[in-house]
């Protein structure tokens, strides 16, 4: 009974994702010019970014915990969240690329949001480089925690402030109407919100597994 209580959110995640896939492909969606049926990608593309931001935010929380308490466990957890966050960022790029091909006509468009995310990937690749360049465990943990917090702040500026200042093809930027105003009707909301929760829970589930693997690896090294 204890385990069921602790694992219920994983079951919830599976149920929500099955519902997302089923309702996402079969549910009623508004007919929009250009977008047509691709509007369903909302459940699979936008949700990736929500999940990534939640994962990276959690990672920053654990980095702060490390700086406060100097417990190597926090650093291990933090790095696992960054890794899984990056996987979701790459998934977001791929789903976005497919969507862009069918609506804007190209796999990669010169859009500030796309460029920002590409820079974000570079920032976090540098994070893994920083980690591998430090031989000492404590030093590695301390420096990468500092870098992680700083990088998150810059990344937030990059994806929230900059795209709003320049022209973008994305809804809600550069004079384009946001989805919520005209397209996102209540039928879509019934799928979109559960989809966010489902994907986020899945992200945290994968991160938990990653943390457990890292723990075992560390014990094997000792």
């Amino acid at each position, binding site marked *: 009974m204890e385990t069921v209580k602790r694992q219920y959110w994983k079951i919830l995640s599976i149920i929500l994702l099955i519902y997302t896939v089923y309702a996402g492909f079969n549910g009623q969606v508004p007919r929009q010019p250009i977008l047509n049926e691709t509007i369903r990608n909302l459940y699979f593309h936008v949700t990736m970014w929500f999940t990534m931001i939640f994962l990276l935010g959690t990672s920053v929380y654990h980095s702060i915990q490390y*700086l406060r308490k100097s417990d190597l466990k926090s650093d291990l957890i933090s790095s696992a969240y960054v890794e899984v966050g990056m996987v979701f960022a790459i998934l977001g790029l791929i789903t976005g690329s497919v969507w862009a091909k069918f609506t804007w006509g190209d796999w990669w468009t010169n859009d500030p949001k796309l460029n920002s995310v590409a*820079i*974000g990937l*570079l*920032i976090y690749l*540098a994070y893994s*480089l*920083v980690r591998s*360049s*430090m*031989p000492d465990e404590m*030093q590695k943990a*301390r*420096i990468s*925690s*500092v*870098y992680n*917090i*700083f*990088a998150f*702040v*810059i990344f937030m*500026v*990059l994806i929230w*402030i*900059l795209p709003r*200042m*320049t022209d973008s093809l994305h809804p809600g930027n550069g004079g384009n109407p946001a989805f919520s105003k005209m397209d996102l009707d209540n039928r879509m909301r019934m799928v979109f919100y559960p989809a966010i929760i489902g994907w986020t829970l899945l992200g945290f589930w994968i991160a938990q597994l990653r943390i457990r693997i890292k723990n075992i690896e560390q014990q094997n090294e000792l």
Partner: protein
Amino acid sequence: MALTEIFVLIRKEMQLEWRNKYAIHGLVLYLAATIFICYLSFKAKQQSIHPIMWNTLFWIILLFSAVNAVGKSFTQESANRNIFYYTFAKPESVIFSKIIYNTLVMLGVSLIGIFFYSWVMGNPVRNMPLYLVSLLLGAIGFASTLSLVAGIAAQGENSATLMAVMSFPLIIPLLLLLLKLSKSALDGISLSENWDEIAILGALDIIVIVFSGILFPYIWKQ
């Protein structure tokens, strides 16, 4: 009290620089050589250069000079001497003194740079005071972002590579905002119509300085 400490540390930086003049001479020579290479590759061939390209080229030259100038902040002095500073100065004073000193260096570099650059490449700027404002905000932003990154990079083994890999993605939001503001100056748009950009740039500078103050103590303690 903290202010006198910062002041003493800035004076120490200046005296060190004054004694080893080769560092500052090297920087000026680096700037002059880069600008002259740009002149030979672009202007001498085509006779004229598009104003947007003129602007972008100048900021890229400044960026590379900044990475070179600020990158040596923590590697210039020996580790033993850094431990000596650690015993009597607060880490906040160390980072703020570095930021202020590097800002002064970057201001000097920008002014010498714009003078020499206008001399050989021509000067299409229509609103020079606004361009100087963007140079000032750029000097503060470059100095503060790169000082913290230099502190992180100095901890690693291959600090020059680490510095380049970490600083370029992290500096991009700042660089994009600076390009936007200096483009307005180029087109002769008045200062009063650019308050938004100036405010966002100033806010970004302040965010970076505050986070440097919070995070640097964790890098500094060994």
